[in-house]
């Protein structure tokens, strides 16, 4: 109903929280999802399905370790295939969470409050999925520890000029920081759950997890300082991670990889796909757990706007790639660009343009931005588009580089698909567990929101 109101009186600011909520009501609503709400058939079914997909993932990995990466479609010249495509894709998705929590926090955007928690969870799970691939794709995964700097009896160390080593540090740092950021945010809510727990074991578990948080003024003070600092640190970190990932390509000399535009447009792309994934998850979840009050249409619209903006940056990136190829007249880049349009994989490129550039333009229309079904579909399209982008960059560039005599092609095998779908399953399964095991929305921050909405004071520190 608030929506209609707003249609009539657009000037009046639409609230981030449907009116009529008290500290207790928000707390009840969110906490009950974890503590009291019975396991629905839908949840059970979904979990069972995703769980079996995860089992398939394990199977695929076992077979991979037994036989070697040769079970995949990779070859010479295309040494990287699905594995790296998926890695970059997942890492990209993993950007939204921390971005929302950190940057929007610094920018003092209240609308982050109701989505940051599960966006962060999503980040963690996405990074976990991403982290699998670099390990799986090596020829000798059991030797992967060579990439760690440790005093070996061989007296040799990692080779720090390699972007892959940068990846190791960037991704593991990002994973760690996201985790602690998430946990710190959870502390007060865990305390809430502890105090509202119905059974002894719930009490003990949440009691231990909450570390005895009791909300004392001094604690809150240090807590806020630490949280602010984390946000401040996470912000450049988010930007750096995908920059480093883009270096995997930009530092290589392969035409189609070796370009300076990569870092910015990889980051933009990451945020782009991240928000798309948040929508993909938020829309069904708010419906399933009746949280329309907390995640309002205004939230969704806000995210749509971010997607539109980042989408345009990505589009600009594509354009610049073309422009540079033509402007520099570097014959290799020129040929590569030309390949994208006419080469054997041209359809991937066309599909990419459709998904990432054309479709999102619909978001200029307010009606679309506020139409939940439409948003859901568009978010899916963008997720697909971003996967295609990585495929275009990784595979097409490799198929035809400097030596025509060594040109080749790539096509994925059943094992490639099994691994990719497997990680999708893993991701969703973890999300299922999350929404049941922990508060999907930051309760204490919601209480703050109630406080502010009631006092009409925007912003807080």
């Amino acid at each position: 109903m608030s929506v209609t109101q707003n249609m009539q009186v657009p000037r009046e600011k639409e609230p981030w929280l449907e009116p009529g909520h008290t500290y207790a009501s928000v707390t009840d609503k969110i906490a009950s999802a974890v503590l009291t709400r019975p396991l629905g058939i839908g949840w059970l079914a979904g979990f069972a399905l995703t769980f079996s997909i995860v089992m398939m993932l394990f199977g695929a990995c076992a077979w991979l370790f037994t036989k070697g990466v040769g079970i995949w479609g990779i070859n010479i010249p295309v040494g990287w295939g699905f594995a790296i495509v998926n890695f970059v894709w997942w890492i990209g998705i993993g950007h939204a969470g921390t971005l929302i929590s950190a940057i929007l926090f610094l920018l003092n955007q209240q609308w982050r409050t109701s989505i940051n928690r599960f966006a962060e969870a999503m980040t963690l799970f996405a990074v976990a999925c991403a982290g699998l691939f670099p390990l799986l794709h090596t020829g000798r995964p059991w030797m992967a520890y060579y990439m760690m700097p440790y005093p070996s009896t061989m007296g040799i160390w990692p080779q720090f000029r390699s972007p892959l080593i940068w990846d190791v540090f960037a991704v593991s740092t990002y994973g760690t920081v996201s985790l602690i950021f998430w946990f710190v945010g959870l502390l007060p809510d865990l305390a809430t759950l502890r105090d509202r727990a119905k059974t002894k074991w719930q009490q003990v578990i949440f009691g231990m997890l909450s570390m005895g948080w009791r909300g004392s003024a001094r604690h809150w003070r240090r807590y806020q300082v630490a949280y602010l600092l984390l946000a401040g640190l996470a912000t450049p970190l988010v930007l750096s991670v995908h920059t480093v990932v883009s270096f995997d390509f930009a530092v290589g000399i392969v035409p189609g990889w070796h370009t300076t535009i990569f870092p910015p447009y990889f980051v933009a792309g990451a945020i782009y796909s991240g928000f798309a994934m948040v929508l993909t998850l938020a829309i069904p979840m708010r419906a399933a757990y009746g949280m329309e009050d907390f995640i309002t249409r205004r939230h969704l619209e806000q995210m749509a706007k971010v997607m539109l903006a980042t989408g345009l940056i990505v589009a600009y990136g594509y354009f610049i790639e073309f422009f540079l190829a033509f402007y520099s007249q570097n014959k290799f880049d020129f040929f590569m660009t030309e390949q994208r349009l006419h080469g054997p994989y041209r359809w991937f490129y066309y599909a990419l343009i459709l998904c990432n550039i054309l479709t999102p333009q619909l978001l200029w229309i307010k009606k679309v931005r506020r139409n939940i079904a439409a948003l859901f579909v568009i978010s899916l399209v963008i997720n697909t588009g971003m996967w295609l982008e990585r495929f275009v960059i990784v595979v097409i560039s490799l198929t035809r580089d400097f030596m025509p005599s060594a040109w080749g092609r790539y096509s994925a095998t059943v094992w490639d698909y099994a691994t990719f779908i497997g990680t999708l399953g893993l991701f969703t399964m973890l999300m299922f567990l999350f929404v049941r095991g922990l508060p999907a929305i930051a309760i204490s921050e919601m209480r703050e929101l109630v406080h502010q909405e009631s006092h009409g004071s925007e912003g807080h520190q």
Partner: protein
Amino acid sequence: MLKRNADMAQIFHRSANFIARASLLGGALLAGAALTAVLVLARSPYITNERVTRTQPVQFSHKHHVGDDGIDCRYCHTSVESSAYAGIPPTRTCMNCHSVLFNNVGYLEIIRESYRADESIQWTKVHRLADYVYFNHGIHINKGIGCSSCHGSVNQMPLILQASPLNMNWCLDCHRNPQANLRPKDQIFNMDWKAPANQEEVGRQLAAEYKLRTTVELTSCSTCHR
């Protein structure tokens, strides 16, 4: 007046505080300790087999043959100067003496049998390098590295054992600073050689004399790996 409250809200006993903190700290320390342990283990004889003796078909004593009898290394390890492989003596070499000396003692029956039946003796390997390491005895001998620098004072060993860790770090130590171990040509096979006080400059002179390659060359990967 004051309300007495039953301690319902309290979940944990106060000892839980200590337990919680201790377990966190302990966990961290334990992880660190485990990691250190692995690194130490990798350098321990358990992995390197340093100073490990092996049971051999014949309890051959280098102490006796080298120390007491003063037989030269090259009498048995014939190709040590010329080839990558020092060479394990064929049974015939043993029989050169033992067809006359101790030619009826029981513990040498294996040798005699091997010779009669023309079947090799299976010695258990003591110094083992990985397949992808291409060590060449010849060049080390020719460039002034003595046997005992790596094999220890064999003339003191009743049962031969591996005197050095033989891991890459150990190889590198010498390849980075060979001067410390260079000897005059006539000392190569001297098991009791000790580095003189002025080894530093002696080493430098010898290095020049032997036209030793630079450290950069000696530590290039393909020097040992192909």
